[in-house]
């Protein structure tokens, strides 16, 4: 498969955006998150929806949002914020539809759903001043075609609003002022449409007509089977056609290993990722083998074979709640892993901490899991550069899914 690595400032592709909790990595102090070198973090806007007054105070005191959530001065210029309306961490569905054309209900940490207009939403977004803004979207109310149609219409409306707020036209003369377009915030258009090809196609087409830098594929979480999911992704990529070479494509999901393999097989560049945190939350440490010496020689699997595997198999993990199983393991999680946890602590120690309900155990697992994602993406990038992505995917599936 052809894979054209694109560079989003510092980000190689395939790459990932790591989800945060109110701007910080799950359970990690900055001391623990810094060595992970994550330069692209997802901020969930609903975490800050009620913070308008806070943003005013920040502005008054000339402080940036990035410094507020703990970025050092040096990090402010090299760590990017991807502002998303959807948060795969929240226990509830993060959004509810409304009858009005210009509002949605967002689930906030402050207690339940909060109706917000697109105007208000982007006003707050502007105050956060993200490097990438994902346009507001509406998750369809129902499974029917009608609600998907509505969702697409609203989503396109929301995109227009994003453009009008983040790319205000100067003097109404856009041709001459093209060079002056403010690109300090990239705009990524949300793609909805669910299982309905027609709606999805319409959403893609209308999005492409607008001044955008990337597209975010939403709505595949509701797919009932992995085939459906794969079909939705493949169709969206097909509708994007040659445009995808000039746009950043992002897959919005929990970012499981399966999601990533599926996305990469279909040529998606970037991934929203929360899964390493969710695994750590349930005390699962990734146990992936990254000794990929022979990946290039691995025979590529067919799409059908990949789907069948993804359907039935899971990445290998250690269940650290199984104390008896790990108490004699006086080694790190995985051989050769260079993360802080593996370099300094043992499975036995982590299993002890988990048994004692000590959060330091969860912290160590989070560090390791995110590090494993770092390695996975480094290897994907290397394979992409060598035009050997299909070989790598097949090697990875054979080695790491059981």
């Amino acid at each position, binding site marked *: 498969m052809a894979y054209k690595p694109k560079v989003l400032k510092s980000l190689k592709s395939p790459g990932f955006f790591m989800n945060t909790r109110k701007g910080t990595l799950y*359970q990690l102090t900055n001391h623990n998150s810094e060595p992970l070198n994550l330069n692209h973090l997802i901020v969930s806007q609903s975490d800050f929806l009620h913070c308008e007054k806070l943003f005013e105070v920040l502005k008054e005191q000339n402080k940036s949002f990035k410094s507020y959530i703990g970025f050092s001065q040096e990090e402010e210029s090299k760590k990017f914020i991807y502002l998303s309306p959807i948060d795969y961490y929240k226990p509830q569905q993060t959004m509810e539809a409304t009858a009005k054309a210009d509002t949605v209900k967002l689930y906030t940490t402050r207690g339940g759903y909060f109706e917000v207009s697109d105007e208000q939403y982007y006003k707050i977004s502007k105050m956060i001043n993200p490097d990438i803004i994902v346009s507001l979207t509406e998750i369809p109310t129902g499974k029917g075609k009608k609600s998907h149609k509505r969702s697409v219409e609203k989503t396109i409306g929301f995109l227009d609003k994003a453009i009008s707020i983040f790319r205000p036209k100067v003097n109404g003369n856009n041709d001459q002022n093209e060079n002056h377009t403010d690109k300090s915030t990239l705009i990524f258009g949300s793609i909805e449409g669910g299982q309905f090809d027609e709606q999805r196609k319409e959403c893609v087409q209308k999005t492409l007509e607008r001044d955008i830098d990337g597209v975010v594929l939403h709505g595949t979480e509701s797919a009932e089977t992995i085939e459906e999911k794969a079909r939705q992704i493949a169709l969206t990529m097909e509708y994007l056609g040659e445009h995808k070479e000039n746009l950043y494509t992002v897959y919005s999901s929990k970012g499981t290993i399966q999601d990533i393999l599926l996305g990469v097989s279909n040529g998606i560049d970037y991934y929203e990722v929360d899964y390493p945190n969710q695994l750590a939350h349930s005390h699962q440490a990734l146990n992936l083998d990254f000794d990929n010496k022979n990946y290039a020689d691995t025979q590529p699997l067919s799409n059908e074979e990949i789907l069948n595997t993804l359907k039935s198999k899971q990445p290998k993990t250690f269940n650290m709640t199984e104390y008896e199983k790990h108490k004699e393991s006086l080694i790190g999680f995985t051989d050769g892993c260079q993360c802080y946890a593996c370099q300094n602590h043992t499975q*036995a120690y982590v299993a002890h901490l988990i048994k004692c309900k000590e959060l330091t155990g969860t912290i160590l697992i989070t560090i390791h899991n995110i590090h494993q994602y770092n390695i996975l993406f480094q290897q994907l990038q290397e394979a992409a550069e060598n035009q050997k992505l299909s070989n790598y995917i097949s090697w990875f599936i054979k080695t790491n899914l059981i």
Partner: protein
Amino acid sequence: SMNKALKFVVHKTCNKARASTLTLPHGDVLTPVYMPVGTKGTIKGLTSQEMENLGCRLLLGNTYHLAYQPGGNYLEKVGGLHKFMNWKYNILTDSGGFQMVSLSKLCEISEEGVKFESPVDGSEMFLRPEDSVHNQNQIGADIMMALDDVVQTTTVGERMKIACERTVRWIDRNIQAHERKDVQNLYPIVQGGLDFDLRKYCLDELIKRDAPGYAIGGLAGGEDKQDFWKIVNYCTDHLPKDKPRYLMGVGYPDDLIVCSCLGVDQFDCVFSTRTARFGTAFTKYGFMRLKNADKEFDLKPIEEGCECPTCQRYSRSFLHNTIAKEETACHLISQHNLYFLLNLMKQFRQSILDDRMEEFVNEFFKNYFSHEKQIPQWIQDAMVAAKINLNIKFDE
């Protein structure tokens, strides 16, 4: 007499207060020192690396918890607690007696030991001085505590006398059972509640054993502050000048300063990390409740000028907005509180070395009680005993 696995050098004193270096098998500890409590083999929410970075060189483990999970035999097999938690500096363990009394249904104390009900399965368990020392030998702490007969601080009369006498009888069994005298130190604990005569009896008997260091026990149990400092003062008056003194379970910032002035060298307390988890931070102006509404838009760090990793990056507002939702905020406040106490002791020590301790103590209390605009009487009285002139005028 006991062999020692420590060296204690007093560099300089200011009246009763001392600036010293305690050299233990896992390196030097500058005293007076606050020792963070890592009950089950970790300081809650912080990695060993973070503790090292905070400047901690001596932390606590709780024998009762560790002997239960992962177990003494297990720890011995894997090379001790240092190796198990990858902590290259010093560890102190308690005897397990205090936890046993506070967490278990106590059945009976006899000359042989303590019989209690296991909080896990309700079965009858028995802890003798020999068992406690054996557990601590297996854990491998640099400083171990002798098992004593623990009673409530405010107990008076016959029961306290029995406890003291038993503590003294048990110390020889503790010493006898100690199998690693060349690499681990055993501190006896001075008991006696609030009774000076019993304290004296205990002190005389324990000092005869020529231990490497001594602990003052049985305080911080809800006694009156006037009683508290007088007992501390009495003990430090009588304890050997060339040995470290550890005041158990005491760790509020003002307590640390008062008792350091009275000649205590080591402190421990879970309060700093426990209170952090409820959103309370230590500052030189007293406690700060980060959950209070007035912190919502307060962009200053917990304490201006604090060099802890938390204050370098995060504001009161951020911690306020995050604390109820994310545990990371608790870890960050714990980190600040630990740094605060570690650094407070470091600065106190430096002030002795620089001949400006009195000035330091005056400034500390002036700030610390700036809201009350009044120094508590017990502190004023304790400072008289410590021969420190308090000359504090609060602005109206």
